[in-house]
C-alpha cells in the first residue's frame, strides 16, 4: 500500500512555488468572494447581525491561515491576499469583488501555464 502511494506522495510533497500555491490562491479567491457576498446581502438587510459578525471572523481567520500556507508570500498573489486582509470587516462588496477577480486572473494564468 505504502509503495503504491509513494509516487503520489512524492508529487504532492515536491511541488513548490506558484504550482503548490495554486490551491491557496483558489481558496483565497473564494473566501474573498464569499466575504463580498456576505457584505452585499448584509447591506440589503438579508442577514442577521450574529451571522454577519461570525462569518467575518471565520472568513478572516481562514484567509490568514491561507496566507500563512503560501510557499511564496512575497509574490503578486501573496500581496493581493495581504491587501484583502487589511480591508475592514464591512468593506464595500465591489472592492472585495475586485480583489477576487484579480486573484481569479492570477489563478487562471497559473493554471494555463
Amino acid at each position, binding site marked *: 500500500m505504502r509503495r503504491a502511494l509513494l509516487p*503520489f506522495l512524492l508529487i504532492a510533497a515536491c511541488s513548490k512555488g506558484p504550482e503548490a500555491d495554486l490551491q491557496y490562491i483558489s481558496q483565497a479567491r473564494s473566501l474573498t*468572494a464569499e466575504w463580498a457576498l456576505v457584505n452585499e446581502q448584509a447591506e440589503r438587510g*438579508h442577514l442577521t447581525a*450574529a451571522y454577519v459578525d461570525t462569518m467575518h471572523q471565520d472568513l478572516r481567520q481562514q484567509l490568514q491561515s491561507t496566507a500563512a500556507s503560501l510557499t511564496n508570500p512575497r509574490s503578486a498573489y501573496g500581496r493581493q491576499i495581504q491587501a484583502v486582509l487589511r480591508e475592514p470587516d464591512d468593506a464595500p462588496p465591489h472592492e472585495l469583488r475586485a480583489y477576487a477577480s484579480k486573484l481569479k486572473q492570477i489563478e487562471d494564468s497559473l493554471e494555463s501555464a
Partner: protein
Amino acid sequence: MNPLELTLGIMTAVGGFVDISQLVFSGQAGSKFGYVLISAFAISTIGIMVFSEMCGRVAAVAHQPVFSLMRHRLGLKLGLFTLIFSFLSTLITCAAEIGGLGMILNHLTGAPYAVMCIASTLVLMASMWVLPFKWIERTYGLLGLFMVVFVVAVVAIHPPWPKVIGGFVPQVPQGLSTKEMLSFSYFVVAILSAVMFPYEAYFYSSGGIEEGWGAKDLLTNRVTSIVGMGLGTLLSIAIVALAAQLFAPANVAPQIPGSVALQAAIPFGKPGLLLALLGMLFAVAGAAVETCMANAYSVSQFFGWEWGRHSKPWDAPRFTIAWIAVMLVALLIVLTGVEVMSLVEYSIVFSIVVLPLSYFPLMLLANDKSYMGQYANKWLAKGLGWLFFGFVTIAAIAAIPLYLLTSGG
C-alpha cells in the same frame, strides 16, 4: 402497513439524508462544475437505496446486524481490520458533524464556537440517553426538514431548468485540463462517499433490529429506502443547483459550511437564512447521533455485547459506555482546533476506502437463500448490488491518490 408510520419514516429519511460533508461538497460541486455533478448525486443515491434496502431486509428476515455478519463472513482478522478502519472513519465523521454543529450554532447565536461544540455535544448526549430509538431518529430527521427551504429557493430563483434536468445525465464536462479532470474525478469519488457513508448502513440495519422488524415490515423498508432517500437527495441537488446559479458567477466555491446558508438568504432574506441554518443544524445533529451510535453498534455487535437503545442505558452498559466515549472523543478531536473542512475531507477519504468491505458481506448474505429464503436478492437487487460494489471498489482504489494529487479537490 400503517400509513402514518410510513409517512413519518419517509419524512425522517428525507430530513436525515444530508450531513456536513454533503453540505460542503454539494456547494463546491455546483460552483466548480455547474449542474454536471447532479448525476453523481443521483447515481450514488441509487447505490444507497440498494444497500439500505438490502440492510433493512437482512435485518428484518435474518435479524443480523452488519458487524455480526462481518465477523462471520470475513473472518476474525479481516473483520477486525474492517472494524478498526470503519470505526476511525466514522469517528472522524462524528467529529466533523460536531464541528459543523458548533459552526452553525455560532452563526445562529454569535456565541463562541468551542462553547457551542461542547453545548451541542451535551444536548445530543442527553437526547440519546432520554429518548427511545424511534424518537431519536424522528426528532432530528423531522426537524431537518427545514432544509426544504433550499428546494423552494431553487424554484424562486428560476434556474435554467433544461440545464438542471440535463445534469441528471452522466457526463464529463468538455475542455477540462488534466488538473481540472483530476479535480472532477475527486468530486465524483467524494460525492459517492458522502452519499453512501458506511455508517448509514450500520445505523439503518441496527435500527431495523431495534424496532423489531420482521417480514411484515419489508414493504415499509423498501418504500422508506427508495422514496425517503430519493426525496432526500433532492436537498443536495437543490444546493448544487443554487451554487451553480448563485455562487459560480460570483467566484464563490464555499470554503466554510456557513456560506451555504446564503443560498436561502439571497431569495428570502432573514427568514430564509434562519430556516436554512436551522435545517442544517438539525440535519447535522442527526448525522452526529447516527455516526456516534453506528460506532457503538459496530463494536458491540462485533464483540457480541448486549446492545441497543430499546433497553435502558444501564441494561447494556458496554454499549452505553461505547457511545458516550465516541461522542466525547469526537468532541476532543474538535477541541484540538483541527478545521471542520479538514475533518470532512479525511472522513470522505477514509469512508470510501472502507465502503467495499462494509457492503461485501452484506451482499453475500442478502444473496444467500439458506439465510434469506424467499426474501433473498432477486436479479435486479443482485445486478445493482454488484454494479455498485464495482463502483465503490474503483472509488476506494482511486480515493487516496486523487486526494493527494488534487490537495482535496
